[in-house]
């Protein structure tokens, strides 16, 4: 039996949730005060995901870098792979919000899009 302790982030209350796991399966969730907490805890212990926001280099622009985000969530354990893969990307200025910087980042099947307008 594995015990995981989490802080729920679905609202400002921040319930301390305890999840009991066995062989990768959720056995019980306690400490939450609403169904959203249960949903959060269950996805957080089985397949946690994050949106990654970072930078890529920009050539010929008014700034040397431009902000980007993954256009959707990536598995939490792939976060640092995504950030590393972004270091190999260089865009040409000008760029607009929504421009695609990468079609599939670090094999996650998720696009990376530009989040600033830079001339």
């Amino acid at each position, binding site marked *: 039996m594995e015990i995981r302790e989490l*802080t729920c982030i679905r609202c*400002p209350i*921040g319930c301390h949730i305890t999840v009991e796991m066995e062989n990768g399966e959720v056995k019980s969730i306690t400490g939450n005060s609403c169904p959203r907490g249960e949903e959060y805890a269950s996805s957080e212990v089985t397949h946690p995901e994050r949106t990654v926001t970072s930078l890529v280099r920009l050539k010929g622009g008014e*700034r040397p870098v431009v902000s980007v985000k993954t256009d959707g969530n990536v598995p939490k354990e792939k*976060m640092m792979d995504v950030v590393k893969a972004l270091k190999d990307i260089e865009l040409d200025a000008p760029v607009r*919000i929504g421009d695609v910087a990468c079609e599939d980042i670090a094999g996650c099947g998720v696009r990376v899009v530009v989040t*600033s*307008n830079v001339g």
Partner: protein
Amino acid sequence: MKRDLVIIGGGPAGLAAAVSARKEGLEDILIIERDTRLGGILNQCIHNGFGLHTFKEELTGPEYAARYITQVEDEKIPYLLDTMVVDISYDESTGDKKVTAMNSRDGLFTIDARSVILAMGCRERPRGALNIPGYRPAGIYSAGTAQYYVNMEGRMPGKKVVILGSGDIGLIMARRMTYEGARVLCVAELQPYSGGLKRNIVQCLDDFGIPLLLSHTVVDIMGKRRVEGVTIAEVDENRKPIPGTEVFYECDTLLLSCGLIPENELSNKLGVRMNPVTGGAVVNESLETSIPGVYACGNVLHVHDLVDYVSGEASEAGKNAVRFLKSEDAAEDDGDVINIRTENGVRYTVPSTVRISKMPDTLTVRFRVGNEYRDKNLAVYLDGKQLMKLPKRVMAPGEMEQIILVKSKAQEIISGAENREHELVIRVEDKE
């Protein structure tokens, strides 16, 4: 130059105020921004989580700013960039307001403004205001300055980082520096609770195994030319370092995220009444300062937790400035006034006075508490009669609270009173 409305600052507050004033039909608006672009601090806040209330989706800072900048451009609202306002003056006998500004193109110039919206935002508390002993080497930055270097200039301020203060910018920078290859050793927080949002603690610290040391502070900074390390000690309930608890952290960078201060030099010179708790102006229900026709909104008024609330507040200020200009505001002002008093855990409110004649049907009153409270009631009394009692699971200093005052309910209570001055009290109470 003459203008109906001059907005000082082109960040989230200034932009929303301008868009809202134009929607109310005002033609003659000018935004003055000292940076080279509109958008203010949002431009460097490349993380997401903005706009959940306003746009019902999660945006990054630059994307959120762009939504408003696009509206300003579409509406052809004029703005001046790279322009610094150096003075605002008020002539009490004529009601005239003069805004003096300068830039490298036009030099020094003065604008006669019929109304002004103060939207200058806030500034980080610097090291000098924190009384940290030790040397003064390179490598000590406010978190926002580091954020600018990394996100706007693509430069790294250091490799091994300690962060003092658990404000949101510090938490965000812990993750940002980690992404960029730095090692963040810990975040030390003087208070026994975090100053930042819960989601930032989970996603910026817990995700990367960065410890949050509550009731800890930096008691020494080592290194003469460059930071070589800091000493962190635990503090007691009076926030005094406990001897014997000192731990040395070898690092080359110290980031400070120890609070934000509204940037009110102009407001002070102008002579508007200030609130010592918020560091911002005292305003009434219309977000109008003690000077008629001068409004304040956003972080220059009080430091907000979410930009969505800044936009909402600024829209109100924009709307009210237009009412002032159309003289709809000039109706009898000698009616009932409610003064809001805070006690028992509630630190301040915005607004702090409410003129019933000018009050909208429902009025949002925003405030912060001074401590972490669990399972308490938030009680509101008007002239000694209980107006509301809201059970609260949790309230924390890092998160802004609000109540909605209903005009008809307030009128019911005060209608029988002889006095025209009324008192509204907001306080934290134990549950029975």
